[in-house]
């Protein structure tokens, strides 16, 4: 079986649409947010956090419903829930292997932002998948933070995200951005060449024709016109729409509402600047540590 690809980034870093795009490659399979690495066993993640007792579990339910029954309905989701509850002692690697078996010889792509909630979550990725490919996706801290704030204000369920995460450090979007990226840099140091690659999300989204073939080359999969064209339609993913009433989420709400690429709009993407007041924290500016890290990641 092929090694999976894990997209590592904090929330609001283009990961939903990137995962869906790459997942439409004929040799790949893009997953919704499984959030599997919050524990060692299925039982630990299923009952271990408030996050997974709410919308955090929708991605896994939708995946199992789709793969087991070929559809995502309230009934198939109920069956997926039953399947999970009878396998709570399964290690997460076994769950992932089951999904891989269902998908076959395609590269599984996971983009769960919860992988960066805690160091131990990312450590589980590294431990269970020592040969997986890691794509570190970045976005300007201002763009990320403003998007987080807008999403929290626009979606009632996300206002309680601070409690869900049980981590006051990450309630501040700037700190969440910095801690997430510092974690990725620290944990990927010393990996064998080629296992870890980093990409500015803004560059990718504004230049799909430039970067999608590079990602294919890196993953050693086809980069012909048909494959690239398939990737240009993330909306064809079975997870690129709201799920049934008992598992409606599993991905970024804005992506679920509008999963299509708009190349013209993307080509006009402009990176914000590091200097200047923070719109979500009047009178404040970015912490120097954020600025230093952002410059290291290619932001000005």
């Amino acid at each position: 079986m092929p090694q999976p690809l894990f997209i590592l980034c904090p929330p609001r870093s283009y990961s939903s649409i990137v995962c869906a795009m790459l997942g439409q490659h004929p040799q790949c399979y893009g997953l919704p947010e499984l959030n599997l690495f919050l524990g060692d066993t299925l039982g630990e993640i299923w009952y271990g956090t408030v996050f997974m007792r709410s919308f955090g579990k929708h991605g896994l339910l939708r995946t199992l419903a789709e793969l087991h029954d070929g559809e995502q309905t309230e009934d198939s989701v109920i069956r997926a829930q039953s399947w999970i509850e009878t396998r709570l002692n399964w290690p997460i690697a076994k769950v992932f292997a089951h999904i891989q078996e269902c998908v076959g010889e395609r590269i599984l792509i996971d983009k769960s932002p919860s992988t960066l909630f805690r160091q131990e979550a990312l450590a589980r990725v590294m431990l269970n998948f020592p040969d997986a490919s890691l794509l570190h996706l970045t976005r300007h801290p201002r763009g990320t933070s403003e998007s987080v704030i807008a999403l929290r204000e626009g979606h009632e369920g996300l206002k309680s995200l601070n409690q869900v995460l049980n981590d006051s450090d990450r309630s501040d979007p700037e700190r969440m951005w910095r801690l997430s990226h510092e974690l990725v840099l620290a944990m990927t140091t010393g990996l064998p060449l080629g296992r870890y690659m980093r990409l500015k999300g803004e560059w990718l989204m504004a230049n799909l024709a430039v970067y999608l073939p590079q990602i294919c080359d890196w993953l050693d999969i086809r980069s012909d016109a048909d494959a690239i064209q398939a990737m240009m339609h993330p909306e064809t993913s079975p997870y690129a729409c709201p799920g049934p009433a008992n598992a409606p989420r599993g991905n970024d709400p804005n992506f679920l509402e509008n999963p299509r690429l708009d190349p013209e709009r993307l080509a006009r993407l402009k990176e914000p600047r590091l200097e200047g007041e923070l719109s979500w924290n009047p009178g404040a500016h970015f912490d120097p540590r954020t600025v230093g890290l952002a410059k290291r990641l290619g932001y000005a």
Partner: protein
Amino acid sequence: MSRLLDSTCFIRAARGGLGRPDAAGAQAMAVFGGALYVGTGALAAGVTPPPARLLRFAGETWRTVLESPTSGMAEEPAVDLRLAPDLLEALHAREGGATSCPDDAGYVSLAVFQAPGESAPALYVGTASPAGGRVLRSADGESFEPASEPGFDLPAYAVTALCVHDGRLFAVTRGALDGPLVDLDASALPVVHMCLDPQAGSWDEASLPGFGDEDNIAVTALASFDGWLYAGTANPERGFQLWRTRAQGEAPFDWEPVIEDGAYAFTANHAVAALAVFGGALYLGTATRALGYEEEPALGTDAAELIRLDADGSWDLIAGQPRFTPLGIRAPLAMMGAGFDDRYNAAFESLCAHDGALYLGTRHWGAFAALAQEAGPVVGGYQLWASADGLDWELVLEDGAGNPAEVALASLASTPEGLFAGSANVEPLLSLAAALRERDDSIAPRAGFEILRGR
């Protein structure tokens, strides 16, 4: 097929700073009149440095041909802003009674240049001085005259690179002076200077400051390659840039960017540390912001990269972190990551073609990192690497050739008598770091620069 030198080929041609253990660096080398010249320098640590010396090696003996006077021109020694305050304090506590500061703390760049109308080449020396670095000229390698004003009339600490291109001499400075403090990351004016008349000491500015980019805080390296003059910068905001010009028409010349954004590694590739022509290509070694004598740089694990540039301006990554770029994917052709897979190689500081091979000297801070551990061996120090084709690299020397205080190979020179490699020694800093960690008994570093000869 060229024969690569290995560790058994090297002997020490000089040690202990050649009689001055406080002479920290063999900073520059050049062959002039059939002899090897070596410029020495000291750490800018705020303690009185030894006088800079220019040494001549011929007939297996060393002779000092130039030693800095102590005229009072430099009133007090320079202090490197980047040095940790606790180390500085400890260094000052160790200093003996006050002595006069020599005019020049270092002779840090050398070039051989024959100006139009002159009958023979002359030797040019770039100096480092709290009163402003300048260029000296010697027709015979024995007597020297100023060939520029101190600091080019600016508070510029050192003339750190000299380069001959298309029958003209170019220079850059590094180190912005503010009283005794010197910011060695920056230049007082980040331009390329062009010599108009060496005997009259007249110079012009061959570029705009920072090539028009205020984030280029210094021009750090120069090279002449395939009819172009190349200049590399330090840029703490977006990573180094590499520029080039045909140097035609009126100065300042038209320059064009060749590499930007630290070759898309951004600020991890802070500066261009070294440039060298080899095998029809220009090789570029980068530097991170790690000095080589801290226990842990602020952002952790960046290491130096090696890049190969072709005459058409295209480039390949030879050693470094694979990455996506606007130009296509770049994976290291040598199949080695940053620092040649050694995170402590903070800079690829010197490059030199010799006898059909390319040699590379590193700056390596592993000994300082080791001191941060409570136990374990304290090893580290420069490495010397070699390649016959620029792609496959072999480690020749490591761990400062047995002395962890030899933190970098600051200079390399190809001579008929072999390859010479000059070190940068930070024994005072390493010993003090060990004392501060109560690990004095873990190391016995030797002080003063060393010069190796391989043949």
